[in-house]
């Protein structure tokens, strides 16, 4: 079992079983009825444990070998990506080949946009990837641009992470000096609101507007940046693309299961002894991923998939694969690969209330159900968490959930409502006690305590451009 871990910078396991992918050998975990055991040969995170900085172009080339030239052919890569069954790693999990074909099939020069916004506060994997292996992402942009016939490429990063922008810009300049990319990559710094990482937000901003979602259709693949067909992929997805271009679909599928191929980056935080970013084989069980990070034995609940995710008892999800297909039966999904284990002393309702308050403040303030609905739910949940209900917040929320869902231009209200509803299910007994003005001890203490979850301070209104 081996894995890469960002924060403490060393490997917890023996690394010897791994062979460089270029040599066509790779070790992978044993399969047991479609579920992978934890641990896989590192791919994206190869050599991370030895690095406290970004890999230089020279180190990168030595690590992964040269990128095949554009003469590899436009159709070939699209076929390889389809055969690899690569899915988007930004949260939606859409098949990447389908998206690429949709863009490639349209008339005129296309545009490629790499999404490194990572507005999910509980996720760190995109910044970890860009900070350690920026050239892998830039390789991915390059091959994607060739494959869909793009004339320009953009990389969107949050304005709040200046250090990351510097790091990526240095890598871009390194490539320019080496004369590597036929299509130059422009790095942009965008306002960092929760909904600013939505793909229509990126398009709107790149077209000179605010980083807010727009009404669809048209979808970006039809009419995006400069009204051109636009491919928008998460930076991790592009990094996988760079490896598929090198080593092929068969190699990619050596890791993972039938339903979910390759590896994925996950961020595990909360009640774990080694919080951080882990690369695991797709299909690894939720419990195994938590165990990698050193789950504390007294933790009972977990937020699966991030702020748009769902709360569950650890016992009920530990045995399921951490994939879209594996979690669908319980109405959950891996999102951007996020797991947050609720510390034993923390109140799940109080955490959910803080997340809900944050999400309510992070909308684009464009659609009525989101502008009014989310703060209303946040109030209900806060009253409940504090054990000071006005009226009956439980039934008020149950009435409001279905009214709000599905009525925004983007899925922001849907995700927020899903999170809140799952908190009421998972912490049901607590919720009824709180509703009877008997809040748990941790909720009473929690008023003085900081949140267990990393809830960012909401931004000032107005900074959308």
């Amino acid at each position: 079992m081996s894995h890469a871990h960002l924060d403490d910078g060393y490997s917890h396991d023996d690394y010897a079983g791994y062979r460089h992918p270029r040599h066509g050998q790779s070790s992978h975990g044993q399969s047991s009825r479609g579920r992978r055991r934890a641990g896989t040969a590192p791919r994206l995170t190869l050599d991370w444990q030895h690095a406290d900085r970004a890999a230089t172009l020279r180190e990168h080339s030595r690590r992964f070998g040269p990128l095949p030239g554009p003469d590899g052919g436009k159709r070939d890569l699209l076929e390889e990506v389809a055969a690899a069954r690569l899915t988007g790693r930004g949260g939606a999990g859409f098949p990447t080949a389908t998206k690429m074909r949709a863009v490639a099939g349209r008339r005129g020069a296309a545009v490629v946009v790499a999404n490194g916004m990572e507005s999910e506060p509980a996720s760190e994997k995109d910044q970890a990837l860009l900070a350690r292996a920026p050239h892998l992402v830039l390789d991915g942009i390059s091959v994607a641009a060739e494959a869909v016939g793009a004339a320009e490429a953009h990389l969107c990063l949050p304005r709040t992470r200046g250090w990351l922008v510097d790091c990526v810009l240095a890598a871009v300049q390194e490539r320019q000096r080496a004369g590597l990319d036929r299509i130059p990559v422009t790095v942009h710094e965008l306002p960092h609101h929760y909904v600013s990482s939505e793909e229509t937000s990126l398009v709107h901003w790149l077209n000179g507007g605010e980083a807010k979602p727009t009404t669809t259709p048209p979808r970006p693949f039809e009419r995006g940046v400069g009204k051109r067909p636009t491919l928008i992929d998460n930076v991790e997805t592009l990094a996988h693309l760079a490896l598929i271009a090198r080593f092929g679909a068969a190699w990619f599928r050596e890791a993972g299961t039938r339903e979910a191929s390759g590896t994925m980056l996950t961020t595990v935080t909360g009640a774990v002894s080694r919080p951080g970013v882990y690369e695991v084989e797709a299909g690894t069980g939720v419990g195994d991923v938590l165990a990698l990070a050193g789950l504390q034995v007294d933790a009972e609940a977990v937020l699966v998939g991030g702020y748009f995710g769902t709360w569950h008892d650890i016992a009920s999800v530990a045995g399921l694969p951490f994939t879209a297909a594996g979690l669908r039966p319980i109405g959950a999904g891996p999102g951007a690969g996020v797991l947050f284990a609720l510390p034993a002393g923390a109140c799940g309702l109080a955490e959910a209330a803080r997340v809900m308050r944050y999400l309510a403040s992070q909308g684009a303030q464009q659609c009525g159900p989101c502008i009014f609905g989310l703060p209303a739910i946040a109030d209900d949940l806060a009253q409940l968490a504090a054990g000071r209900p006005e009226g009956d917040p439980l039934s008020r929320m149950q009435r409001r959930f279905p009214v709000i869902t599905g009525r925004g231009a983007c899925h922001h209200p849907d995700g927020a409502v899903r999170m809140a509803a799952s908190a009421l299910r998972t912490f049901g007994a607590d919720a009824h006690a709180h509703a009877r003005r008997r809040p748990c001890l941790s909720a009473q203490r929690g008023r003085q305590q900081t949140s267990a979850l990393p809830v960012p301070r909401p931004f000032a209104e107005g900074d959308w451009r």
Partner: protein
Amino acid sequence: MTLTLQVDPIACTGHGMCADLLPELIELDEWGYPILADSVPPDLAAHARRAVNACPALALRLVRTQNQLVTRHQLATRRRPPAR
């Protein structure tokens, strides 16, 4: 072909004119924003058009959509999202 009402949620500012003119198909949520019925029956098409034209924000639209014939098999399997 079926007529369907659609609202642009960004353009809509919750005037509520549509619900006044077409209460059969449109109700307002507690904040005054419209909740639309799935499809417009032919006998209400003229009323629906009037509601669309009355919207001060030009947020309401009436669109034609393909009739979806739903077989019993599809009904039975509908719960599962299509494999992508």
